[in-house]
């Protein structure tokens, strides 16, 4: 059992080593096979653990990692219910995306193809470390690892300067968040002297922390989460991250990595339940992010950008849930979101593949005849994310909105509005892309084709999951013995108080949510079924330019730092440090030139000088001693 658990992250790591080191000799087929095979093996092991359902001793100690004085940080894994759920999502969805990638990336040269799979495997390894670690330090290793892989994969086509800039942006923004995480870990070590979950989250240890400690630690951890999970104010990297290959966007920037923040907070729920202020901040930021990103998504024309902003928006939902104390609902939404967002991204990849790399939906249209499977699965994904029953998104979104309703009516209203916007922009995307008539070039029209089986099969599997995935968390409202997920996660996530809403109220809420989503879809249908290019209004332009947030950050943060840098360069460096260094050189040169006159070559004068100085020494000796 112990070895089996260690194998889960080890297998992708071995895959990374083989593909990374052998990238110049491995044929494409082998590289793809190794890449997908290792993840599949991890998935099978995870599935075995899940089916055995034996969580009696979740912590598996592998070896001592850091041992300094009284501080002992073991390299240990903790495989409990929450981790198992994430293991299944990561390796399961990850495997499907690996398979999809073998077809999607087939045009790459062999060396880059293997490099791609090496990065992807390294990512899976890091993500597994993140969710399996039994303490904050192991989690941090994974936390940094996924950031690195995200950077590597966004900048995968490193010859394009814009893409590398996007990669750098993602890395820097993640680093800002990581600093918060690191400070929180230091704070925990300083107060408790341990970082292991099962020691930190004991009642005795939590009682040692003052209210300030708890607020500080939770807030700093949340700063880390805003970076990794793309929340205000650090969300702008995620839309730019779409520079990477589409399967990467599906795996890293939709299904797994960006949910690391949610996992971390859900894992620390014992701590967060004590931090009322932080929870309010998380809920507000989550709701604000959800709404802001949803409004931006309304007017984006890049198929992947729409999905990226939708991801940011859905992550905002999850944070809204975390803030309201609905940890199970957040994890539930992570799961369903992983299914339908991976599906949507892979679907968009299939579309991009079909139209020869075009990403602007204004140049698409009428694709549903050429791409029937993609269209159907994309439609399922859209329905799921819009929250139409009985698709998976409905249940998780409903759980979140219900909790928000019980927590604060205003946040609930924001969530509801976002739900409407979500349905609207997703179906706008669907109708513009697949309905109407084709608006691309003739060459593209001839090239139109359905994707190969390696790409459509993952789409179909994910579509099935998007339909059925919600039933694990079906609320008690609809059926006896529901809430299976909450039951399953109870040993890890055990909220002190649960929400109780009258069934009649709940029915009204469900009806409202569904009705508003359906209405949004109808509006989108009427408006966009025959899309024609239109002149955007003032508000439209504002949204198209993403509220000018990037420009704002540029003006407020980047420009001043650049100005500071050029000031330091021109003033401190040039006229300060350089002047000093050059001055020393000049001084030596000058004094050398002056001293040269002493070296006249007149032997007599040397001797005279010698004698004079000797006499001077004697005189000094005699007179200064007194």
């Amino acid at each position, binding site marked *: 059992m112990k070895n089996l658990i260690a194998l889960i992250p080890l297998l992708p790591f071995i895959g990374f080593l083989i593909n990374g080191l052998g990238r110049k000799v491995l044929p494409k087929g082998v590289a793809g096979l190794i890449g997908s095979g290792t993840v599949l093996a991890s998935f099978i092991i995870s599935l075995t653990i899940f089916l055995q359902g034996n969580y009696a001793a979740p912590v598996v100690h592998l070896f001592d990692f850091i041992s300094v004085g009284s501080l002992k940080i073991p390299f240990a894994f903790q495989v409990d219910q929450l981790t198992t759920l994430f293991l299944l999502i990561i390796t399961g969805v990850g495997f499907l995306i690996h398979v999809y990638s073998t077809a999607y990336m087939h045009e790459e040269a062999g060396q880059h193809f293997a490099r791609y799979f090496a990065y992807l495997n390294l990512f899976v390894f890091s993500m597994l470390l993140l969710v399996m670690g039994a303490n904050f330090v192991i989690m941090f290793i994974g936390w940094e690892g996924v950031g690195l892989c995200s950077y590597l994969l966004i900048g995968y086509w490193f010859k394009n300067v814009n893409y590398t800039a996007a990669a750098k942006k993602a890395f820097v923004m993640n680093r800002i968040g990581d600093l918060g995480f690191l400070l929180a870990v230091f704070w925990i070590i300083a107060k408790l002297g341990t970082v292991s979950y099962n020691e930190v989250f004991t009642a005795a240890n939590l009682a040692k922390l003052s209210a300030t400690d708890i607020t500080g630690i939770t807030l700093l951890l949340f700063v880390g989460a805003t970076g990794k999970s793309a929340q205000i104010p650090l969300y702008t990297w995620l839309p730019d991250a779409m520079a990477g290959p589409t399967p990467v966007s599906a795996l890293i920037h939709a299904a797994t990595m960006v949910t690391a923040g949610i996992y971390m907070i859900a894992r620390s729920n014992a701590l967060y339940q004590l931090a009322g202020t932080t929870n309010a901040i998380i809920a507000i930021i989550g709701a604000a992010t959800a709404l802001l990103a949803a409004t931006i998504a309304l007017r984006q024309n890049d198929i992947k950008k729409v999905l990226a902003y939708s991801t940011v928006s859905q992550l905002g939902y999850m944070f809204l849930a975390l803030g309201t104390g609905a940890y199970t609902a957040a994890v539930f939404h992570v799961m369903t979101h992983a299914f339908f967002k991976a599906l949507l991204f892979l679907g968009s990849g299939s579309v991009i593949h079909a139209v020869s790399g075009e990403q602007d939906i204004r140049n698409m249209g009428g694709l549903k005849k050429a791409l029937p499977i993609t269209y159907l699965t994309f439609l399922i994904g859209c329905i799921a994310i819009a929250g139409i029953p009985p698709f998976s998104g409905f249940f998780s979104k409903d759980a979140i909105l219900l909790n928000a309703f019980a927590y604060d009516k205003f946040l609930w209203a924001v969530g509801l509005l976002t739900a409407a916007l979500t349905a609207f922009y997703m179906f706008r995307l669907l109708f513009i892309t697949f309905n109407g008539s084709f608006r691309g070039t003739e060459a593209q029209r001839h090239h139109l084709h359905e994707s190969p089986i390696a790409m459509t099969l993952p789409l179909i599997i994910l579509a099935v999951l998007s339909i059925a995935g919600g039933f694990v968390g079906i609320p008690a409202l609809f059926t006896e013995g529901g809430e299976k997920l909450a039951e399953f996660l109870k040993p890890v996530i055990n909220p002190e108080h649960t929400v109780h809403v009258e069934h009649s109220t709940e029915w009204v809420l469900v009806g409202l949510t569904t009705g508003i989503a359906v209405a949004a879809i109808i509006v989108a249908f009427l408006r966009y079924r025959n899309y024609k290019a239109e002149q955007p209004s003032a508000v439209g332009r504002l949204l198209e330019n993403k509220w000018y947030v990037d420009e704002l950050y540029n003006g407020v943060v980047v420009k001043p730092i650049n100005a500071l840098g050029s000031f330091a360069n021109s003033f401190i460096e040039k006229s300060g440090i350089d002047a000093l260094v050059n001055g020393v050189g000049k001084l030596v040169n000058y004094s050398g030139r002056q001293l040269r006159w002493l070296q006249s*070559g007149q*032997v*007599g004068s040397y*001797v005279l000088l010698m004698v004079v100085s000797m006499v001077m020494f004697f005189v000094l000796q005699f007179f200064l001693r007194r």
Partner: protein
Amino acid sequence: MPINYYIFLSLALFIIGIIGVLTRRNVIIVFMCIELMLNAVNLLLVAFSKMHHLAAAGAGNAVNNVGSEGQLFVFFIMVVAAAEVSVGLAIIVMLYRNTRSVDINFLNRLKH
């Protein structure tokens, strides 16, 4: 005889040597002045050595060879001086052969 006389004599010899080196242009004379300085030092060494020996004897702890180090050094200096003279004279001879003079200022040309 008091030590002062020795010191003054050797000081006088040394200063004569220095002045000779500084003022004369004939290399041979400069050379002789250098010898003079060396010998001034020798004289002083011998004088102090003798003084040391007598003082030790007066204090009652006389050993035969007390103060002999100074005299030993005199021989060292003589050997060094002899070696120096042999080299120096050879240089002077070469100088004379090349320039038909023994003017020391001619050596300034070595810097070119």
